[in-house]
């Protein structure tokens, strides 16, 4: 099926990266859609955790917030927020943390705190929430965002969460034992960090996307892998499942109580 929108392609490509036995700490928005799409397609037994305390949740519609009632209703168990951050996140039980970004640099460092100076911001963003410790405690980090020059920047204004710092072994130097960002999925391409420099490198272009498009919407000089592949187009199952999920979600959130 070739009629997928770039955003649908992004969500579907991200969902494919999740393994059936992953334990995934889910943020709201594109990460939530990707995680639930994986659960509804190739990874039915994936464990989805939302920071509100819901573990092993299986919502029928995407939650508007990270604490919607359906997350609790369908969870294996719901724990307190301190327990969530102590036993489950800090305890090292989460294999994949899924983050979005307002600003991202080529080493996977993320800003969702403020545009401009922290103490005198041009735009005050919502802040990190769970992100600073998600970035350091999860086994690895997947990032999704739509490409644009304002978001994918050479230097982020604030280090809300640490990716690979200035590259190389920056994480080890800070005593962080986890892998950090291992995947970036945008609406145009799939990126992975270079084994040595840790700079995000395009490994796959989504169908119909050119290298120029990727570069034009990115604020740093893009590195492409030696062999850039083409992301497989969405399957009918993937696209139908995602669209059904979004349709159910829209009906539930826009009208009266479902």
């Amino acid at each position, binding site marked *: 099926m070739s009629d997928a929108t770039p955003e649908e392609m992004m969500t579907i490509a991200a969902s494919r990266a999740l393994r059936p036995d992953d334990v995934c700490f889910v943020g709201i928005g594109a990460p939530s859609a990707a995680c639930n799409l994986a659960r509804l397609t190739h990874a039915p037994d994936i464990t989805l955790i939302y920071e*509100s305390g819901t573990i092993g949740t299986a919502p029928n519609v995407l939650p508007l917030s990270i604490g919607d009632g359906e997350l609790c209703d369908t969870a294996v168990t719901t724990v307190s927020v301190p327990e969530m951050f102590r036993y489950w996140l800090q305890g090292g039980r989460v294999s994949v943390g899924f983050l979005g970004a307002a600003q991202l640099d080529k080493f996977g460092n993320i800003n969702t705190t403020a545009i401009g100076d922290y103490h005198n911001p041009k735009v005050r963003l919502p802040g990190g*929430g769970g992100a600073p410790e998600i970035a350091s405690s999860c086994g690895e980090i997947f990032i999704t965002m739509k490409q644009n020059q304002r978001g994918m920047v050479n230097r982020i204004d604030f280090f809300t969460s640490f990716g690979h710092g200035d590259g190389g072994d920056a994480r080890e130097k800070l005593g962080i034992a986890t892998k950090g960002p291992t995947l970036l999925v945008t609406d145009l391409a799939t990126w992975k960090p270079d084994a040595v420099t840790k700079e995000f490198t395009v490994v796959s272009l989504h169908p119909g996307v050119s290298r120029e498009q990727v570069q034009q919407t990115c604020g740093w000089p893009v590195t492409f892998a030696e062999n850039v592949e083409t992301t497989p187009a969405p399957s009918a199952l993937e696209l139908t499942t995602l669209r059904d999920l979004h349709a159910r979600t829209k009906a539930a959130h826009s009208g009266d109580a479902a």
Partner: protein
Amino acid sequence: MAKFLSLHDAVAANLSDGDVVAFEGFTHLIPHAAAHEAIRQGRRELTLVRMTPDIVYDQMIGLGMAKKVVFSYVGNPGVGLLRRLRDAVENAWPVPLEIEEHSHAAMANAYEAGAAGLPMAVFRGYRGAGLADVNPNIKMVECPFTGEILAAVPSMQPDVTFIHAQKANKKGDVLVEGIVGIQKEAVLAAGRAVVTVEEIVDNFDGLHPNACVLPAWTVSAICTVPGGAHPSYTHGYYGRDNVSYLEWDDISADRERFTAWMQANVFDASPEDFAGRVTKFRNAT
């Protein structure tokens, strides 16, 4: 020991100008009715504490009731930014607002340490994160066994905490269930605690033994306010009014529209109005 009071009297007796106050709730069970009563009573110079300040803190900040906000995520959940808070931070409207910002892990640990009577919380956090550079309340301690450097933050012990819960029994014990969030810790960490509930029942017979119950002697006042979490929700009673959250984005975008909305929906309203606001969400749980 819990007293059964009207919301007006409970807020008047427990919240004063200048207090450090937490209206806690993690998406679920946000004590909107209690916050609206605090608005009507005109409290000022508050330090507002909450992990996830959302629209009710946006309302209080937009009215200039807060001198400071302590938080880990300021957003309209699933919708976007908080426009009144932005106006205060970016433009000092209507008054300047001091911020103390943490991560969720830090705030959760700080409340936990507060409930545990400790002066600080220790956790593995803030590595490489910019907040450690801009918040002097983030320090480091060394593990005397391994040498590992861990993060430390002061424990959070508000003067008073407000929460909304499902129910109390006649003795004043309070039941919280579903997404319990940080409420137990916020109550136990605070000097005083006021709980609004959907209903008072005779007893909790048959309740699961490990359910989250706050004994009556940990609570200062209990007020029956059906619908008191709206537009948030109460597990087992009514669903979340997502449309109100979406609409807030527009209402809060404009100072005049915001002011008019507050007049009509808060100043000219009462705790009894909350029951009607949740009627159509009662089948959603």
